[in-house]
């Protein structure tokens, strides 16, 4: 009895300290970033010598600021989530609701396989796709924003599929019976009862995938990102992105000032993802209320 108590106390202490450790690490990271980047944060970091209003309306091009990279990252996230969310959620619904048992195992295996593909390999796929198009369809094909977005979408697809599938199948058995017992058709049950109950978990998957799209560097490096290129004028042109900018600065900075700009960019990237997380959170709250 006493031994069990000791083990329990030890476990409690261990779990407690793990939690504290995690919070400390996150706090240290953000603190470090703030300390290093705070002196540089300002309009100059973002827009360089160009007036912010002129940069915003696109009247003047920003060369020595991170504005083009911010815009690039923003569009990259939006594009890849627009591609991946409908696909991922629909595939998750199919797997949880409609897929025959014997096919389910096979699909799950392939999705796990997809989840295990390193991002650099996914980038290589994107690159090969461009080569193929270049060779067989049009010689004008080149790496660009849409190719990066597509590759990123495939990178995050497994998260979305799995979270949707798990969200739907983790609804308690008795709640799963409500719709059918009231005479709902399968589609009505799914749309009006089960999906609203799963919104919370599905949105967690979306948030995870947004984070992944924002931070991944390996994929975009091979599929169209450039260090200096300005704001891209279409989805078929090269673009700048914050993670690559940070990577580039970290690898090739020539002065302390340049490095400090890299820290500033990191903080901005964190703020962008933080804002997107917050927006998803608000959407979730709204949806829950509406239901």
């Amino acid at each position, binding site marked *: 009895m006493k031994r069990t108590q000791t083990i329990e106390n030890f476990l409690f202490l261990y779990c407690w300290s793990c939690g504290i450790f995690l919070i400390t690490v996150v706090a240290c990271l953000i603190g470090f970033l703030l300390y290093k980047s705070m002196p540089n944060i300002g309009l100059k970091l973002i827009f360089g010598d160009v007036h912010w209003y002129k940069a915003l309306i696109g009247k003047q091009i920003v060369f020595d600021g991170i504005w083009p990279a911010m815009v690039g990252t923003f569009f990259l996230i939006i594009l890849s989530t627009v591609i991946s969310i409908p696909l991922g959620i629909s595939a998750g619904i199919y797997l949880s609701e409609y897929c025959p048992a014997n096919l389910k195992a096979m699909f799950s295996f392939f999705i796990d396989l997809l989840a295990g593909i390193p991002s650099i390999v996914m980038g290589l796929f994107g690159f090969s796709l461009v080569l193929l198009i270049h060779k067989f369809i049009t010689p004008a094909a080149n790496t660009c924003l849409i190719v990066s977005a597509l590759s990123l979408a495939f990178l995050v697809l497994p998260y979305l599929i799995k979270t949707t599938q798990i969200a739907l199948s983790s609804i308690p058995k008795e709640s799963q*019976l409500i719709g*059918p017992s*009231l*005479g709902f058709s399968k589609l*009505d049950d799914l749309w009006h009862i089960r999906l609203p109950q799963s919104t919370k978990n599905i949105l967690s998957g979306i948030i995870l995938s947004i984070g992944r799209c924002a931070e991944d560097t390996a994929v975009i490096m091979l599929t169209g990102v450039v260090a200096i290129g300005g704001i891209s004028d279409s989805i078929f042109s090269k673009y700048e992105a914050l993670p690559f900018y940070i990577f580039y600065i970290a690898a090739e900075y020539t002065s302390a000032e340049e490095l400090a700009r890299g820290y500033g960019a990191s903080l901005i990237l964190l703020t962008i993802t933080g804002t997107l997380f917050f927006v998803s959170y608000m959407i979730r709250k709204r949806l829950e209320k509406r239901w």
Partner: protein
Amino acid sequence: MVDTKFQSDWKIHIENLCVRFGSKEVIKNTSASFSQNKINSIIGPSGSGKTTLLRAINRLNDIEENCYTSGKLFIKLEDKWHNILSNYSSPVYLRRKIGMVFQHPNPLPTTIKRNITLALKIITGLSRSEREERLINSLQQVHLWDEVKDRLKKPALILSGGQQQRLCLARTLALEPEIILLDEPTSSLDFKASKRIEQLLLELKQKYTLIVVSHSLRQTRRISDKVYVLSNGKIAQELSSIQIHDDQMFYKVAEDFF
């Protein structure tokens, strides 16, 4: 369909019903008839197949992937007999006509009002005013209206267990079914809440046919018009209302089967 083989007071008629999940046969070649506007109770030890038999009536077992049902199951809906296991029968129509209340109250995690109106909106296509009318009627039928009329927009989950169960019953009644299946509706409720539900069932049988699976023999004696004793997947005995109240007879059943 020739209706002559059915007695006029029957609502449900089962012939040689078998239900199996995978290779496990749960209901074994069972036949029975349930009368309309009566409380028909199904009792039996755990694992005897009570819930499966109940769910065979609204074909709710069908949503399990490995469930196979055979035999004949006739139900009189809108004064016509339907063979509900035939390929032409729609489980969706059937379930709209046969309400169900579960062992644990399972309101949707939304407002009290929406718990009732959601199904009405989707299934019946009634206008807003008609839906409101049904909402009030159904809540009044389960004596919940006075308790919740001022907080219809509040989450249903703040209600007590007994109130939640009555809300679930109201949700079913709002769709105006002909038959109500109740799967141990009071097993998770306290004494007072159980009594209220019992009282309600006695009122409801005037309008509906009730099939109640019960875990409590005492409760079964208090409310039932007919009792079906299920043992090992088969209806082993049927007790009429006179037999139910015969102490000796009832205790013998309890000793033999439980």
